[in-house]
């Protein structure tokens, strides 16, 4: 008698596609931000905001389009990813609009740049472009394994993207970090896109080299050390992430890349020694950078004692203000539009947007947001588990791992859990590159999850199987 064990997560039975679930969740994800928008308008101006219908309609149309594309091109995709991203993006627009209404920030902008321009309409436009990009990813990328072909091209592309901001004339030094380039009046943060591109390279490279890395190694002090020629690219990544940090003052991105690589390496080789080596290397890197880069030292000091250098150092003041935002929010928050998170100053709607959540929505709101992010990560990891090909697995875990590291680094930074690094909170923070890159990331995860959850094609009837069944020992 044969025992049937289901070793894959995918059975041959027709799975429900869950598209209708997704639609219901999307309705929810559109209605909530509209209420939030009304809430801000009532709190600040005492009336419903004039653009409420246009805004709500716009969000609904965008969500509907995205849903249609998923229904058409990725029928079996995970039903949670799109609604959560829509909800976060919608609430992010409301938060940005709320900060646009702050007189304090308007005056600050007038003093520093001579004029104030609203960020919310721009963010809506970026959102529209991002959802178009999302749709394009789903339509053009029929199978994520196609990307395997571009392994080394991706590496080159990632390097170029990362180096762009340092090129004189192209890069723009904004508030000390050289992570922007300006093209035709738009500033782009190439690092955000490099995140995805480099995940392609890692996944492709590791899929090929995993056996070499895992098995062809020497034992040294209880650790398995790989051969030099396999180790080369890894060392290069490490050096690269340090260089990014040194030349572009971008602590966050270097940590993100390095962390993502260690995670993928560990998953590919199943060797714990990689975690140890990765940790050692990052500690080494951190010590070196911490000793030589003064702005990193300033941030570490600000983290250790946010109020110690409060009046003297900008780094301290931001962290201090941010922590006080969270504290002043308390458990229930002050309510949309009723806090003073704009005291943080110029980065209030970008790097520090999560402080506004902390102050105006309180502990309950922050926990809800963190759980939403947690859900995205969880769906991503689940996608990686379900994926049937190693490339898909590595790609999905790389993207989800990077996403979770980014959440941790940004939210941990503004909450004073770890030293501050300048990165954006996905979907919330104002900025085109971030929105575009994260929608592309969601698009790719949806594509992988569609492939993973798609029912296996029914086996072709084989004459042999008939035969097997009738043979009986006698």
């Amino acid at each position, binding site marked *: 008698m044969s025992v049937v064990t289901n070793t894959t997560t995918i059975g041959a039975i027709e799975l429900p596609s869950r598209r209708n679930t997704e639609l219901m969740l999307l309705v929810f994800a559109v209605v909530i931000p509209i209420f939030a928008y009304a809430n801000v308008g009532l709190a600040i101006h005492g009336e419903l905001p004039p653009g409420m219908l246009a805004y709500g309609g716009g969000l609904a149309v965008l969500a509907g389009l995205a849903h249609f594309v998923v229904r058409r091109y990725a029928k079996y995709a995970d039903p949670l990813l799109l609604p959560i991203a829509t909800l976060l993006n919608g609430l992010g627009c409301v938060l940005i609009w709320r900060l646009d209404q702050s007189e304090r920030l308007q005056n600050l902008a007038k003093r520093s740049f001579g004029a104030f321009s609203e960020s919310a309409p721009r963010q809506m436009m970026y959102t529209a472009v991002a959802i178009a990009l999302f749709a394009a990813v789903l339509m053009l990328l029929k199978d994520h394994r196609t990307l395997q072909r571009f392994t080394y091209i991706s590496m080159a592309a990632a390097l170029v993207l990362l180096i762009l901001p340092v090129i004189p004339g192209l890069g723009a030094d904004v508030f000390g970090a050289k992570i922007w380039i300006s093209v035709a009046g738009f500033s782009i943060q190439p690092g955000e896109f490099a995140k995805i591109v480099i995940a392609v390279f890692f996944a492709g490279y590791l899929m090929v080299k995993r056996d070499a890395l895992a098995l062809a190694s020497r034992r040294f002090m209880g650790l398995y050390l790989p051969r030099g020629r396999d180790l080369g690219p890894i060392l290069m990544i490490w050096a690269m992430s340090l260089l990014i940090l040194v030349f572009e003052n971008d602590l966050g991105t270097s940590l993100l890349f390095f962390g993502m690589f260690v995670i993928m390496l560990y998953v590919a080789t199943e060797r714990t020694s990689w975690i140890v080596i990765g940790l050692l290397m990052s500690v080494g890197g951190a010590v070196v950078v911490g000793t030589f880069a003064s702005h990193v030292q300033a941030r570490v000091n600000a983290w250790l004692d946010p109020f110690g250098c409060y009046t003297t150092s900008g780094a301290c003041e931001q962290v201090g203000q941010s922590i006080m935002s969270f504290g002043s929010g308390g458990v229930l928050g002050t309510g949309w539009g009723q806090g003073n998170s704009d005291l943080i100053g110029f980065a209030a709607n970008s790097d520090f947007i999560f402080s506004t959540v902390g102050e105006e929505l309180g502990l309950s709101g922050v926990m809800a947001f963190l759980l939403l992010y*947690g859900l995205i990560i969880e769906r991503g990891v689940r996608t990686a588990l379900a994926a049937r090909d190693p490339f898909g697995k590595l790609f999905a875990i790389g993207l989800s791992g990077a996403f979770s590291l980014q959440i941790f680094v940004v939210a941990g930074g503004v909450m004073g859990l770890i030293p501050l690094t300048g990165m954006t909170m996905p979907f919330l923070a104002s900025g085109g590159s971030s929105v575009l890159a994260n929608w592309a990331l969601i698009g790719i995860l949806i594509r992988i999850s569609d492939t993973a959850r798609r029912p296996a094609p029914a086996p072709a009837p084989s004459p042999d199987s008939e035969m097997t069944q009738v043979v009986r020992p006698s």
Partner: protein
Amino acid sequence: MNKPLRRISIFCGLLVLALLVRTNWLQYVQAEELSTRKENRRVQIAQYAIQRGNIIVKGGQAITGSTATDGSDYKYKRTYVNGELWAPVTGYASQAFGSTQLEALEDKILTGNDDRLFFDRTIGMFTGEKKAGGNVVTTLMPDVQEAAFKALGNNKGAVAAIDPRTGAILALVSTPSYDPGSFAGNSKADEKAWVELKDGEDKKLVNRALRETYPPGSTFKVVTAAAALEHGVVKDVNEPTDTPEPYILPGTRTPMVNHAQGCEKASLLAAMRVSCNSVFANLGDKVGRDNMVETAEKFGFNNDKIDTPVRAFASVYDKTMNRDGNAQSSIGQFNTAATPLQMAMVTAAIANDGKLMKPYMVDQLTAPNLDVVEKHEPQEMSRPLSAANAQKIQQTMVDVVENGTGKSAKIKGVTVGGKTGTAQHGEGNKKRPYAWFISYVQNPDGTSPVAVAVVIEDSNADREDISGGGLAAPVAKAVMDAVLKSKI
């Protein structure tokens, strides 16, 4: 590859968990501390976000106001009606320089943030009414305050007047004073006014009535008299004491100087009338340091928690000095120091037949709609002396005003008791002495509507007791007159 994937998923979960723990720590455990940090401008922003409630004096007149400002984080600015007159009562609430006294202590009521206004705010949420601040209704009488302020004139000094029956503070004046409205905002002009006041020689910001101690001089003799009667050293105020002339301070060769004649073996009544130093030094020595401390403390000395609710500085009667120090302290010199409020409390206790009522100046706290949130009930603080002994001292104090050094406080038609004092000041008595006068008015039924203490820092006369009687007594008289004439 699924095993490491599961581990990575746990790792990602831990990252999110760390954030969840951190936010709970910040927003629940540390929320209170963070939201009230001094660096947190929200505290001031909230303080001035709405029209602040008012401080109101007896009769219903508001002595504060609020005015809208623009171009700043702070929407409203505090204004003051007759700021110089009321500064010792209100303190100040400045957008740039913080707040003090009633403005600081009752801030929650004034800003409408007090928990007891919760229902008010909740109802306001539904009726759409704007949040408003509550009011602080004080016990101060505007006529009396003005009379005291006018009588002090250009002198540097202070007046504290109490209703002995309840402990209600009727007047609290400190001169030279300042206008809290001059630095209520946060403009350049405000800063200039503030710096001038803070660094000025006159110490205008000091509340001399509550928060400055002076040697009480001869006015302290009533405390010594109370101690002598309470501890049985003197039984009859008319009986001669055994004081020699000259009286040599115990354990020294220094004679106690008298400015008056006829102090040898003078009775308590006679000694009080002309203010004999020798007699009271002798009595204080006989009572002994510990008993003197006991009586002084019952009157409120050595107590650093006299909250009206504005906390008064502790008046001092030294607990560790030796015999000759105790003898000198018994006439209000050496280590003895008292606030004007403290001496008013001493007078009030004597006038109220030995019962000292806790001094207070906030009668009611009201909600914006004038509903009473809290009402002060008069409380007994202590009984420094028996009713019989209090009446004996009253007899001597009336004698001081009728026949002694305090004649200038006499008021036609009522009984007035008082005591003068001129306290030496500075090394070797070089600086100008402080002129003191304490007094009370007695109704025909034996109760007393007011007890008052006056101190003038910069008296020109330096002869013992004459300056107290000449300079300070008319001020006290003006205050008592105002209380008697007041229709409120």
